[in-house]
């Protein structure tokens, strides 16, 4: 019983704005690869992949999603970078009983206030970013922290969560400075971080702000003495800055292409198509789509309730994650990693950028169910 005999998956992403490199076309390609790996069919039913650019506008995203669900018979949406779009679209998916596989979004609310039986939060969230960085770093002896925080909700919560973790693990927070979103120059803020003499400067910001902070940190001679930790960073950022600037930085990652044979194989395939290596969002999108299709294959139905039940039932073992599973609140539980950027000398080949510092098991990385504010979680 596949509705109208086609399984439709919609990749909703940002094809023209700030998440272009972070998700964007790479996510579309990753989803396409997953579909291809099924031979374009599940149980003889055709799989159709459609995509849309939400332009980082929630109203465009939700209008598109509405059309997809009501008219085009889309069964699942995937990716959803940009938290306002992700919130609006996943809400609509829940209303219409369709599956939302959030691989690009980082908002903790998807598995808390906004949780629903139809939402899977797949790759990472702000809690895990903070948690992994805080724990792993303090354990490695980086005890004193200073934060450079983007002055809006995302930055503030990232800073707050990380501080709590740092303190809980025996570290200290020496202070923080707030900078405006899209600041043109970070030197003033970094000088304040420098004079704090903290071991770690945590970057509680994202995108261009991360990149420009790192540049200024190099210029003012902060980096060799103090360690920069990107609280939200991907390999795409490392690539665009180059190893010279980013060497020895640390950041939290959910996946790296050079971790095992499977991931390397995927990385190479992706590279051949996109001329760049995938980041965790791309890999997560591939994995999420594959798991979704597997669940349809297993249940023989594209009914959201059945598929979701199936997805939550099985263990996930693929190139993205080993021994992972989807928790009752929709959180996909997988190990997270603390990565360090290699020095130019250590790097042997193009895109050979990172080395593993620590693995944080899923149970430690993500928000424990006991703390969940999700209404589906039974206590």
């Amino acid at each position, binding site marked *: 019983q596949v509705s109208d005999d086609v399984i439709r998956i919609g990749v909703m992403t940002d094809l*023209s704005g700030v998440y272009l490199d972070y998700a964007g076309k790479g996510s579309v390609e990753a989803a396409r690869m997953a579909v291809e790996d099924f031979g374009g069919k599940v149980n003889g039913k055709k799989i159709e992949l459609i995509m849309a*650019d939400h332009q980082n506008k*929630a109203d465009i995203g939700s209008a598109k999603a*509405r059309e997809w669900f009501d008219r085009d018979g889309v069964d699942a949406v995937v990716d959803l970078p940009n*938290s306002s779009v992700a919130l*609006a679209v996943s*809400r609509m998916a829940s209303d219409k009983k369709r599956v939302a596989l959030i691989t690009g979004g980082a908002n903790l609310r998807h598995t808390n206030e906004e949780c629903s039986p139809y939402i899977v939060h797949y790759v990472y969230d702000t809690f895990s970013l903070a948690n992994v960085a805080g724990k792993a770093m303090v354990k490695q002896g980086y005890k004193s922290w200073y934060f450079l925080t983007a002055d809006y909700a*995302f930055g503030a919560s990232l800073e707050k969560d990380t501080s709590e973790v740092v303190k809980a693990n025996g570290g200290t927070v020496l202070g923080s400075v707030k900078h405006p*979103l899209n600041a043109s120059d970070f030197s003033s803020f970094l000088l304040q971080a420098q004079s704090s003499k903290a071991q770690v400067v945590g970057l509680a910001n994202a995108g261009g702000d991360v990149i420009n902070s790192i540049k200024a940190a190099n210029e003012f001679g902060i980096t060799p003495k103090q360690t920069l930790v990107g609280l939200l960073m991907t390999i795409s950022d490392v690539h665009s800055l180059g190893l010279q600037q980013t060497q020895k930085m640390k950041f939290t990652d959910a996946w790296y292409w050079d971790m095992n044979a499977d991931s390397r194989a995927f990385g190479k395939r992706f590279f051949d198509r996109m001329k760049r290596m995938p980041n965790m969002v791309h890999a997560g999108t591939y994995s999420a789509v594959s798991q979704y299709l597997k669940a349809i294959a297993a249940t023989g139905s594209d009914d959201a309730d059945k598929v979701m039940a199936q997805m939550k039932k099985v263990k996930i073992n693929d190139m993205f994650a080993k021994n992972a599973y989807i928790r009752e609140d929709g959180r996909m539980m997988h190990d997270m990693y603390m990565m360090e950027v290699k020095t130019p000398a250590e790097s042997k080949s193009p895109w050979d950028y990172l080395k593993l510092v620590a693995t944080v098991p899923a149970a430690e990385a993500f928000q424990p169910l006991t703390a969940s504010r999700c209404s589906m979680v039974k206590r």
Partner: protein
Amino acid sequence: MDKRVGYAIAVAAAVAAPFFLYPVFLMKVLCFALFACAFNLLIGFTGLLSFGHAAFFGGAGYVAGHALKVWGVPFELGLLAGTAAAAAIGLVMGALAIRRQGIYFTMITLALAQMLYFVCLQLPATGGEDGLQGVPRGKLLGIIDLGHDLTLYYVVLAIAAAGFALIVRTVHSPFGQVLKAVKENEPRAVSLGYDVDRFKLLAFVLSAALAGLAGATKTVVLGFETLTDVHWSMSGLVVLMTLVGGLGTLTGPIVGAIVIIALENKLGDLGNWLAVTTNVEWFRTIGESVTIVTGAIFIVCVLAFRRGIVGELGALFKKLRKPKETKQAASSLHATAVKTTEG
């Protein structure tokens, strides 16, 4: 006479539309149409180009959303709160900006609106980049459930129509007369005893309030409000709508809003359709280049179609009508619009 026929046809079309098109999409178009008309009230009839109208649109959206969601006020009060907030922001912004003319005015509105953007970004109440989600629609007059799209559609249609009627009336009011005079020759208006700054300010506040009404309504329709609506690119968008439709024409902004909203939402589909029909894969990329296409439209409009769709049509009909006095009925809507331009 024929003006009425034109309006009647428009109303009939609007009433029937939700049976053919998405009500939510239509409501969004209506909200933007009202927004553009409100904006046009300022540029078209006082000659002041504001590049900060997003502040009213989005600001009202946040206030209305907050009132409805957090304070749980009824639907009408929510809209009212949004509108009043926009009027208040308009008053402050106007009081600062009105003292300068032309391009200075434009830049000041732009900068002040950007300031509001930063405030919205930082305030906890707005939810930062998550936006304000889950705004309830509530009930009209406490009885009629607005959860149903079609019901809400007619309510929104009524709101937009009322707003539009108020704009038309304002243009053709004693106040509108003075505005025209001020636009034509400001020192002379002063010497005749008119406090021109207050007239401009009132026009500005009116425009802000109506833009706010549009923004508040949009928030209720979609159920959320995000930073997009207070960002300066939203101000740019409303300028584009008005420009495409016809600056200073009464109906132009409506047409412009329809065209631009449709474009924003459907450009990707259009690209895919072109790719399928012509077999040129390149067309698919159009969907990824909304900003480039928008920019191109701006340039083309400014260089070649300054009068906008309605303005150009009006001029065309005027030309056609000159030799023959027939065809009046068909062109009535546009002709009236054009007449107001010249006024």
